[in-house]
């Protein structure tokens, strides 16, 4: 993280320049101090792959990586992201030569998404999480996924997909 060298004071009524590195590309937009990062990404920079599901930090749909760390874009102000590297779902395939990553492909194979609204956030959490814990147990994985709400899949396809990508298999039957 770049260290801070000077105090910056941003007035409420003014739109201030906010520069980020979005999926490897420097981008600049403008934001009032109160503008949420989720709105900044979607409506100022046009990167609407990041979805908004609750705006109070529970559903996880808006999860992005800030300096590599998975966080809620709805609980972040755009001005707080100034100078930061931000990765969103659009960057996954971009960074993989334009092809979907193994994780994305596994999601497709295992029907890990239906409406797809929660999917971007889950993928961004997973990419951070698997960097730190490349072979989680199913319990660990489900614990991490509990920071996301999915209403379509019952999570089974998601768990199957991740277990496969990490060279494992999901317990097909609960607890027996």
């Amino acid at each position, binding site marked *: 993280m770049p260290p801070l060298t000077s105090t910056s*004071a941003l007035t409420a009524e003014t739109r201030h320049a906010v520069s980020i590195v979005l999926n490897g590309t420097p981008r600049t937009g403008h934001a009032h101090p109160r503008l949420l990062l989720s*709105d900044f990404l979607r409506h100022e920079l046009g990167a609407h792959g990041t979805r908004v599901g609750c705006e109070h*930090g529970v559903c996880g749909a808006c999860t992005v990586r800030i300096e590599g760390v*998975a966080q809620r874009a709805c*609980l972040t102000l755009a*001005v707080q992201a100034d100078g930061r590297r931000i990765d969103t779902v659009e960057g996954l395939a971009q960074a993989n030569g334009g092809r979907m990553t193994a994780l994305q492909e596994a999601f497709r194979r295992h029907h890990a998404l239906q409406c797809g609204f929660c999917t971007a956030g889950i993928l961004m959490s997973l990419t951070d999480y698997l960097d730190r814990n490349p072979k989680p147990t199913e319990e660990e994985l489900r614990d991490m996924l*509990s920071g*996301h709400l999915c209403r379509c899949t019952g999570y089974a396809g998601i768990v199957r997909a991740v277990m496969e990508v990490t060279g494992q298999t999901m317990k097909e039957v609960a607890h027996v």
Partner: protein
Amino acid sequence: MKPASFDYLRPATVADALAALAAGGDDARVIAGGQSLMPMLNMRLVQPRLLIDLGRLEELRTLRVEDGWLSVGAAVTQAEVLARRTLAQEVPLLAAALPWVGHFQTRNRGTLCGSVAHADPSAETPLCLVATGGEVVLRNLRRRRTVAAADFFLGPLTTVKAADEIVECIRFPLARPGSGHAFREQSMRHGDFAIAACAATVDGERASLAVGGVADRPTTRSWPLVAGGLPPDLDDALNAFAWDLGGDDDQHATARYRRDLVRRIGRTVLEEALSCRR
């Protein structure tokens, strides 16, 4: 669900932050991780005129052991503390409780000091701080003061922190050799706020139980060990404690259920703490 308007200050130094806070008074709020404050801003439950961001202040990123305490600075995240390799030896109760704080994604951003300043009666970090006999270091422009965790919390979202103060750091006493610790909580779903959270410590000749989620603040009680074991009248003692906590009904659980949990999980964690003394 969008925040009301505010000025935003990203100070370069803690001194700058404190000066701004002193000037802003009740109209100013500090933000570090923002995992409690941001939802309240988005819902407009909180409408500061000035938001002071402590998140990038290196001075507040301290996480170290000094003089028998683990000191956690205001900008240190839950994930960073959880990743500390020596945490289970230093503050085993915190190591046991932190995985229960929110979720992976919110722990990546949320701070321990922020949780303490927020003072949710169900939150795990304030509970651990009270249970271990920790301290809160408050700082304003003129002075620094240290408040025992037991005296810090006054009620829901209410603490002794003055409007011009920040929680600069919190300090957990290092676990003493021969002490035992255990933590359990019951919540509706994984990661939810606790219906009741119980943290037990057996240390020297006493056993203590701290409870979160029942009273309007984390609350602790202790008993002398009897012949190296838990007191024979522990059930009565836990019952008295459960009633004294005075929990409420809400849409998910009754006050009676909360008392049940204090009596039952309370005993379980005390027994676990006794048996895992090192």
